[in-house]
């Protein structure tokens, strides 16, 4: 008990309510091979995301935000350091388990929507459930998922667009389908990399309203990257990143 107490205390100590840590990067380094040289992009990043928290990651272009997000989203393996999802060290898991974790726990929203061009809006929104289940179980749960997706898409104002292909939708509509897709399996974590970066201000605002509303009602942990100061002000926690290092964190300020 005494041996392990140090670590446990550090993790749960920060506040009295002891907010639950859902996603954490510890000492994450990431370097890429460019030609015959190794180029380090992340120089040891520590970042923790707590339950129901709205975190905004900012930083100039090339700071390594997307690189960090890919690592936190389990898409990329850090060269060094640990990534934990709900206190599970993900790189100690097998490939299949990690994929299952990504499917169940993390929702992605990308700058370029990334919908499948061959599927309708509704089918795109249902895709995570199709990936989660075998053909037989999906068939038995299909109605439930379809209702859920329909409900969300309707709420997002896409009731008339269900059978449309992504190519037939506007950017804002596509991004709303992408949000519905990300939320279908009720993941505790939502990662959004410049979700409004490709939209005009008004549309972006609407998409964000929607995103924040879902975040609040669901108690989601939202990890958002943006260049927009006004948008950042709407987040309870702002983290600044520069040259592959966390420079400032409004929650636990890092002295430098």
């Amino acid at each position, binding site marked *: 008990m005494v041996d392990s107490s140090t670590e446990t205390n550090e993790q749960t100590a920060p506040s009295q309510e002891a907010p639950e840590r859902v996603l954490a990067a510890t000492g994450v380094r990431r370097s890429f091979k460019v030609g015959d040289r190794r180029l380090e992009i992340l120089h040891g990043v520590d970042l923790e995301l707590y339950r129901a928290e709205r975190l905004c990651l900012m930083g100039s272009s090339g700071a390594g935000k997307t690189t960090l997000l*890919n690592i936190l*989203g389990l*898409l*990329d393996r850090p060269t060094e350091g640990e990534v934990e999802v709900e206190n599970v060290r993900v790189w100690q898991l097998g*490939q*299949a388990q990690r*994929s*299952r974790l*990504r*499917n*169940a726990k993390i929702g*992605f929203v*990308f700058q*370029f929507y*990334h*919908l*499948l*061009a*061959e*599927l309708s809006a509704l089918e795109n929104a249902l*895709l*995570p459930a*199709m*990936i*989660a*289940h*075998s*053909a037989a*179980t*999906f068939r038995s749960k299909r109605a439930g998922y379809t209702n859920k997706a329909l409900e969300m898409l309707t709420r997002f104002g896409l009731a008339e667009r269900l059978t449309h292909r992504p190519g037939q939708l506007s950017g804002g509509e596509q991004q709303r389908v992408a949000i519905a*897709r990300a939320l279908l399996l009720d993941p505790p974590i939502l990662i959004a990399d410049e979700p409004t970066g490709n939209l005009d201000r008004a549309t972006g605002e609407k998409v964000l309203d929607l995103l924040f509303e879902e975040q609040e009602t669901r108690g989601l942990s939202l990890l958002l990257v943006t260049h927009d100061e006004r948008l950042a002000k709407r987040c309870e926690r702002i983290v600044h990143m520069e040259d592959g290092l966390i420079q400032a964190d409004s929650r636990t300020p890092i002295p430098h």
Partner: protein
Amino acid sequence: MYRFFLSLRYLRARKTNWIGMAGIFVGVTALILILSIMSGFLNESRKHLRGNLSDVLVQPMLDYPIKGKGAPRRDVDALLEIVRSDPRVAASAPQMVWYGMISAENKEFYASDQERGGLAVANLVGIDVEAEFAATDLRESMLREPAPGTTTQRPADVDDPFAPPPGYQPRGFPAESIIVGERLGAAWGLQRGAEVEIVTATIDPESGRTRDPINQTFVVAGTFRSSHNSMDLERIYFDRRVLADWLGREDDAFSQVLVKLHDYEGDKRAITEDLGVKLHQAGFLHSPESPLFDEVKTWEAFRRTLLAAIENEKSLMGIMLSLVMIVAGFCVFAILSMMVSEKRRDIGILCALGGTPKGIMSLFLLIAFWEALIGASLGVVAGVWGALRIDSIERWLSAKLNFQIFDRKVYLFDHIPSVIQVTGVAWIVAGALVCTLAFAMIPAWRAAKLDPVEALRFE
């Protein structure tokens, strides 16, 4: 679930997939057609090789060998009795076989030097009509439709073929009747009722010396068409007693006995051994152990070398066929590779949503599988349909193109032979599936190896 769903969706959405499917379709169709027609040809060739041979052939040693020569065996009835006492034997027929030359006095023009000399080789076969009909298909040969471009001269009464032809006007002494091969008759302009002179030489069994040539006039009572080229061109049937008499042999002399079995495939091995032993004990044959004499054999053993050539041709065909499969597989490989490059972003998205590399791999393998399955199924339908109706298809095409694609005269076939081999078709389908999937492994594996971060980076 998504693999199933997406593979079908991709299949439907990408038109290039239809090319792969069409490739497999064409490949399978062509293979089934080629296999069926080649099998048909080989079957026909086998039949031709068999000619008027019966299932089993008994060729006893010569009666009293002098200086390596001797006269044909006598006492045919005793031998037939032994053969016919075996319950596995359906029928048997004795034959007297000799060679002679046909003299073409009445020929209108000469095609070659030998013909100018007025002679052509003829294979003289003396038969017992009833026994011959039972053991061989001579009767059917006489009734067969003429080859395209010729007219047969059927005997007036097929069941009594050696009766003098109706309206026969002998030039001198009334001649004995013969039945000639259709092509021989056509080549020499022999109509039914025409007289023809046949020349031969015999050997004196006592001294082993050749006697002076003998010749005799015979009358053509009809022709037969065995569809076996050399037989139709050379063979002349006699009544066995007539031929024996002319050659100076006794009535019961014979050269060989044809044996027809009830169940050839089942009994062929056992019966050749049993007959060899029994006929040896009766003094007709050498000891079956003697390696020099091979007096009872199946028709297949008799035509061993040519049959081996056919089998050879079959395996060569198999090798060529598998090459076509590889081409179809390569087609799918190219299309799928293209698709993997095109769908890089989708692969990244699927990974981000929780797809595993294994799942991505099976997604692309499934696409190939659908292509192969649909292509091969349609190919089987088209191939079997085509193989069943190849003859009318060829006739229709020839008429449309105004050009004879398949010259039936060349092969002496009335129709394009074609045999659907169920196992062969099954092998082709299995081959198409395996080959396609094997080729699809490479792009599918590449897709699974794709780094999702790379794949997602912009468009």
